């Protein structure tokens, strides 16, 4: 017996440490199967999209690496093991989980993360692990690839600015909006969306005469509504999500606001359109842009939706943006794996070269990578219209193919001289 409690506690700690050491020794395994790590957000506000993300990965594996007789996915003669990890949308946790996947689980390829700030942190982490391949999930920050990219980070989905492709030009040229005020949430994703809208809108000659940034989750918009000009603007560009959008539309309408709206990619989705409120009629004619459109009528999209619904009866009514992004990323990985016949040797050099050249037709159109390994892909321009049943729906105006990260302006455009922020770009 120990007379002192300190000694006794130390023995307990010692025993615990031994246990830890023995568990550690069991790590590692045989090399033959290819290990893919999937990282999405399974806690916090993005938990539901996170689950949909994993559906995207699994659907791609089912389709492009069908299960063999052992019940495992297989491509080019090698089995694939998928290891899932969940973060909480903060960069610190995303990196901890990525380290676990890379260093403890020894995954060869990591697919993820889901949100923008996580993506920026993942790029920096990727630079320190040059012999593993990092493929984006659905994170859409511009500078994950645009400025100072990591050579082993690939993104087969588009960024938040690309998601607005076609919108600024259409607003100026077809809708005839010349002066616009904007209301947007104050963080990276809306900055990028606003940037994407303003690249085209400012370049076409439009003016954004006022910017209102509100904290995420704002309930009371009275200050913003009274600050918005009542004359001299043709429309209000709104980049708010979910309940923020509903609150703003309701309060703007109640205050007698009459302006037309232009919507960000998540501003006028089903969660907003399905609500009932006096603002509904005001939403008719709102234009918006997004990389997916539920009602698109291409055969590839319809096939993709059909398989999604069959595979995941408990999934969402339509595969969302997140499922589609992770699906496309995984298809890119599998296409390149097939190309190199499952060869990941030599620090994955051969595989990464093949991945950079990968081209395929996704459910929403052709996808290829630019010099910074960011997707050049399609985007949908839609308008909110009232259907025969009196319900609001987003109707596709057109699909724009081959959208690059500069929205066709070129890398040297003054609008792309700085990272997007509260104050940049500007065309007052």
């Amino acid at each position, binding site marked *: *017996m*120990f*007379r*002192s*409690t*300190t*000694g*006794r*506690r*130390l*023995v*307990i*700690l*010692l025993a*615990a*440490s031994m246990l*830890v*050491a023995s568990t*550690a020794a069991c*790590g590692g395994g045989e090399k033959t199967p290819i290990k893919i790590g999937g990282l999405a957000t*399974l*806690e916090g506000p993005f938990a539901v999209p996170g*689950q949909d993300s*994993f559906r995207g990965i699994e659907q791609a594996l089912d389709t492009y690496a069908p299960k063999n007789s052992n019940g495992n996915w297989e491509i080019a003669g090698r089995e694939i093991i998928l*290891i*899932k*990890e*969940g973060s*909480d949308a*903060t*960069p*610190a*946790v995303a*990196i*901890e989980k990525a*380290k*676990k996947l890379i*260093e*403890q*689980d020894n995954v060869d390829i990591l697919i993820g993360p889901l949100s923008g*700030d996580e993506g*920026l*942190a993942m790029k*920096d982490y990727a630079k*320190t692990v040059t012999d593993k391949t990092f493929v984006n999930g659905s994170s859409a920050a511009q500078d994950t690839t645009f400025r100072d990219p990591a050579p082993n980070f690939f993104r087969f989905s588009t960024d938040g600015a690309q998601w607005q492709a076609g919108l600024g030009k259409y607003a100026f040229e077809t809708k005839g909006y010349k002066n616009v005020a904007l209301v947007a949430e*104050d*963080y*990276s994703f809306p900055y990028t969306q606003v940037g994407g809208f303003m690249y085209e809108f400012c370049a076409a000659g439009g003016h954004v005469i006022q910017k209102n940034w509100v*904290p995420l989750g704002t309930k009371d918009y009275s200050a913003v509504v009274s600050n918005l000009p009542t004359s001299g603007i043709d429309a209000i560009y709104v980049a708010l999500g979910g309940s923020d959008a509903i609150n703003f539309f309701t309060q703007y309408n109640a205050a007698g606001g009459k302006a037309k709206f232009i919507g960000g990619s998540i501003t006028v989705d089903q969660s907003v359109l399905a609500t009932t409120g006096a603002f509904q009629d005001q939403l008719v004619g709102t234009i918006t842009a997004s990389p997916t459109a539920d009602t698109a009528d291409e055969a590839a999209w319809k096939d993709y939706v059909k398989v999604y619904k069959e595979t995941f009866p408990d999934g969402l009514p339509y595969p969302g943006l997140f499922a589609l992004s992770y699906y496309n990323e995984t298809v890119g990985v599998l296409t390149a794996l097939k190309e190199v016949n499952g060869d990941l040797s030599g620090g994955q050099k051969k595989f990464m070269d093949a991945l950079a050249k990968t081209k395929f037709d996704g459910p929403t159109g052709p996808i290829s990578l630019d010099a910074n390994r960011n997707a050049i892909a399609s985007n949908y321009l839609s308008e909110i219209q009232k259907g025969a049943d009196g319900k609001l729906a987003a109707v596709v105006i057109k699909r724009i193919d081959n959208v690059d990260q500069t929205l066709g302006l070129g890398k040297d455009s003054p609008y792309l001289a*700085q*990272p997007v*922020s*509260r*104050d*940049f770009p500007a065309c007052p």
Partner: protein
Amino acid sequence: MSRLRASSASWLRSREGLATLGFVVLLVVYPLAMPRFWVLSIASNAMILGIAALSLVFMAGYGGMVSLAQAALAGFAAYMLALATLEPSTTATGSAIGFALPALPSALIALVLATLAGAVFGAISSRSYGIYFLMLTLALAVGFFYIVLQNYDIFGGHIGFAGILGPTGQPRENPAAFYYMCVAAAALTYLGLRYVVRSQLGLTFQGVRDNPRRMKALGYRVGLHRVVLFALGGFVAGVSGVLGAWYRGNISPGIVDLTRTIDVLIIAVLGGLGYPMGAFVGAVFFVLVDVFASSIKIFGFSFDERFNTLIGLGFVVVVLVAPTGLVGLADRLWQTAGRRRRRPLPRAIDPLAAEAGIAPAPIPALAGSPEVPGRPEGDLPTPGP
């Protein structure tokens, strides 16, 4: 300490001495024998979280102040470190302020400022007790989170800062050095706090904890002592924040959000709020569960998308089975086993604690303080419930 040093030869031959020696050897050998992931993501990370929890255990155990601001104070130190050590930014991202100082002077500045911040937090909240103190510190923590989230000019907004290098360089490239730095910091803060609680100041803290009114009558400045205690807590939390910033290499508001605030409390409760060493035991347990919950399969059912359920269940079990934390549970088991084999040990008195003044005392913040508002004036002396 001095008693230990005087009889160090005989102490080293005792079982306690042997156990300590074995533990120190294990700590030293660990990074040489283990893969990097276990050195950094498990051991160093646990040490960093443990120091933050230690600051809470110290404040709760010796001051009766269950503070929810410890993660914020750690984050404050991390931000101050970043501002001291990084170059000022000229673009829209990053901070307009930056002093480009070397790592160690930056850390010193960060620790001094974290101590001051602790004193300021203490000055604001130390007049309240119990649940009110808890809520005030929570409000301060959440307030700090929103400041760093929304302020771009100084705190870099939601992106925060990257490229913070510690004196050992990239932890990834030299895991053992970083690990030894964490071990040294953990040992120094632990021993330092043990020294403080044995000192006259430490005994005064406990007097203030147990009966502020009587201490006031004896001529002690109760409010000042609580502020000083909070400042010390701020310093220890700051050590954790500085190490954490060097460990991650970057900081963003995510490190001071509500989840991280509550993580510190969970770790302290898991280990045992009355036991300083519990902070580290709790941290090791927390990190292991957090890292491996998604890999665990029970009856073939994988928890990879439901790992939080498993973590939550694990914590519920610990709190039910061991209300005094893991260290408390181990102590109890040990004593039960000892009683069966030999003789009953005095249950309530922890020998080392009795000599050192480290008693796992009831925590007024949770048990109800003698100065909870609403009590009638003039009911001195206050008998314990």
